[in-house]
């Protein structure tokens, strides 16, 4: 018998016992819905965690340092990659070389310094951090009060809300106001002739060669407050970027603020060249971190990333999803018993009909396929129904969570997510389970003796 004829006959048979078959199909639908709801929760939480981690800047960033600087990470420099390439200075030339590497979005130094802020004539001690342009795209500033920096070199500041509350109880009133940043600027001293043999240096983004060392001069910079952010945004790991007053990175570099490690790095670079203690290389996605690291190491620098942490996280979520899937599948397994029951009942009711079909030329295989298709059709409809119900449950979970979060004045979350692959997988699984449930009834129907079946009243 042709597949189309089989399907038509199966559909006709299913419509005959409409109530029973509908209830059985609904049972499958509830089973699939439970599976989809469970998995959507697992996937939603995973996506949320991935998004949060991605926004944290922890997993798409590589810290690059001269080889000698990596002792601080608890390992010897040469152990970092086993490379025998001699370490070079991490200077502007190296920064440009890093920027040219494929999949690199941005390369910037980490600038973060404790300083004093004056607002309305009152001094406050705080930490200022330079925010790279990519900071806006990280999502950490989504939902902020006010706006992000108008440009990469704008004399503007974004305040972390706790700090903003210190300045004014009505934080939104701070937008557009001016504050004064007081800081210590490094100024280059003229180079001594003997010092030019290899001992110059600066930290951060110094422009002129400080081969002869530097002096520190107090300075002030006026900044306009443009935004207030709820969370404390991080632009990288290792504390980089964590500050309570955020300013554009270019502005931070221009300030040439003296930092505590200037003395140490001053001793390491070549004369006349700017050198950085470390640079953050931001890449397109966590997936390319390893490739970019592999490209950086031959340049003679040590690298560090949190790549292993993401793979561990994926593993944890894979186990979590598996457990959710198993619990979700239980309802579907129970529903499959309903299919067996329905089809076995159908065999009893249609015993004579099976005999007639065999007398008219149906082979055992045709009868088997007919019952199989009936089970498959119930699985398909149940699967579609289940995905719809599961999606609605997920929507309900998101709605309820966000209603609660809104009442707590917290930003919204997407705890449940139903991606397309889950829709396809759930329907396929529903059909597979239904076909498996149809195995026994189908083979029992196929084995019916036609003479006995025709005698059946």
């Amino acid at each position, binding site marked *: 018998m*042709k597949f189309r004829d089989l399907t038509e006959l199966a559909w006709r048979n299913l419509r005959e016992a409409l109530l029973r078959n509908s209830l059985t199909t609904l049972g499958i639908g509830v089973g699939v819905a439970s599976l989809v709801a469970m998995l959507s929760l697992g996937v939603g939480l995973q996506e949320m965690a991935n998004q949060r981690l991605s926004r944290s800047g922890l997993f798409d960033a590589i810290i690059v340092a001269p080889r000698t600087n990596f002792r601080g990470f608890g390992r010897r420099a040469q152990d970092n990659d086993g490379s025998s390439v001699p370490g070079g200075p991490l200077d502007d030339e190296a920064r440009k070389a890093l920027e040219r590497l494929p999949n690199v979005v941005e390369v910037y130094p980490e600038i973060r310094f404790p300083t004093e802020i004056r607002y309305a004539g009152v001094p406050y001690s705080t930490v200022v951090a330079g925010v790279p342009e990519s900071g806006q795209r990280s999502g950490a500033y989504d939902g902020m009060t006010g706006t992000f920096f108008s440009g990469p070199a704008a004399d503007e500041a974004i305040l972390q809300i706790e700090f903003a509350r210190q300045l004014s109880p009505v934080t939104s009133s701070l937008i557009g106001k001016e504050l004064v940043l007081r800081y210590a600027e490094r100024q280059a001293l003229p180079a001594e002739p003997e010092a030019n043999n290899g001992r110059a240096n600066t930290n951060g983004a110094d422009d002129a060669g400080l081969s002869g060392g530097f002096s520190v001069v107090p300075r002030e910079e006026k900044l306009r407050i443009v935004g207030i952010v709820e969370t404390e945004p991080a632009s990288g790991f290792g504390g980089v970027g964590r500050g309570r007053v955020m300013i554009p990175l270019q502005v931070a570099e221009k300030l040439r603020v003296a930092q505590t490690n200037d003395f140490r790095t001053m001793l390491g670079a070549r004369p006349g060249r700017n050198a950085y203690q470390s640079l953050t290389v931001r890449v397109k996605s966590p997936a390319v971190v390893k490739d970019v690291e592999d490209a950086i190491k031959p340049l003679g620098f040590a690298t560090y990333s949190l790549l292993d942490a993401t793979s561990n996280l994926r593993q944890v979520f894979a186990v979590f999803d598996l457990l959710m899937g198993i619990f979700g599948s239980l309802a579907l397994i129970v529903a499959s018993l309903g299919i067996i029951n329905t089809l076995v009942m159908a065999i009893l009711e249609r015993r004579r009909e099976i005999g007639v079909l065999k007398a008219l030329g149906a082979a055992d295989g045709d009868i088997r396929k007919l019952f199989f298709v009936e089970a498959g059709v119930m699985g398909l409809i149940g699967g579609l129904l289940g995905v719809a119900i599961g999606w609605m449950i997920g929507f309900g979970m998101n709605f309820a969570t966000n209603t609660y979060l809104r009442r707590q004045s917290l930003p919204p979350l997407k705890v449940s997510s139903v991606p397309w692959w889950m829709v396809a997988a759930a329907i396929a699984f529903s059909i597979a389970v239904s076909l498996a449930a149809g195995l026994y009834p189908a083979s029992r129907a196929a084995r019916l003796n036609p003479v006995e079946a025709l005698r059946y009243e």
Partner: protein
Amino acid sequence: MTPAADGSAIRTDHIARHYQMGSALVRAVDDVSISIRLGEFVALLGSSGSGKSTLLNLIAGLDRPTSGGIYAHDLNLANMSSQELAKHRSHTIGIVFQAFNLLPRMTLEENVELPLRLAGVDRAERGSRVRDAIQHVKLGARLTHRPSELSGGEQQRAALARALVNRPTILLADEPTGNLDSATGDEIMNLLREINESLRMTIVMVTHEQPRAERFAHRMIQMKDGKLVSDGESR
């Protein structure tokens, strides 16, 4: 289907069908050897339990003999797989039953189309074959009616159309007039005779109505307790 070398459509060779019922052995058909020629109209007669329906089921390939050979156009059904038997039923045999056995949820047209679906006949070809078969039994006006909307005689004619639609060479009828009144029974018998004569179709009909068998069949085979007791031409 080509006729057998000896000109027979059906031949049984010491065929037996025994059942075990508890400790008793039931010999439903016991050592029966017959030969039915192509185009012959044969009536299988006997009282209830004589084994005539069992013999019909064996010829149809719905049941298998315990021993002996059963040949349809020289092919031994006893050696066939269940798949081959299904093909035999689909292409060589047409069957009508006492209880009509039309599927109640299908229309007349759909019931008649069923053997064509099972045989995998193309959809384009089915329509004309179904209409031809239905015209043959003069039910053209009842195409969309369900069996419950047809009289007993119409249902049996519909069953006949269903049996003919696959153009079999052998038509088996198990008590085809058993559920019909006398006049309608005669109508069906006339139809069977017309099919036998116009299509040269071999017909084996099980019945317990000897007078009717004598009127319409060429030959009458009498069975009793699973054995052949007489075999002769009707008057």
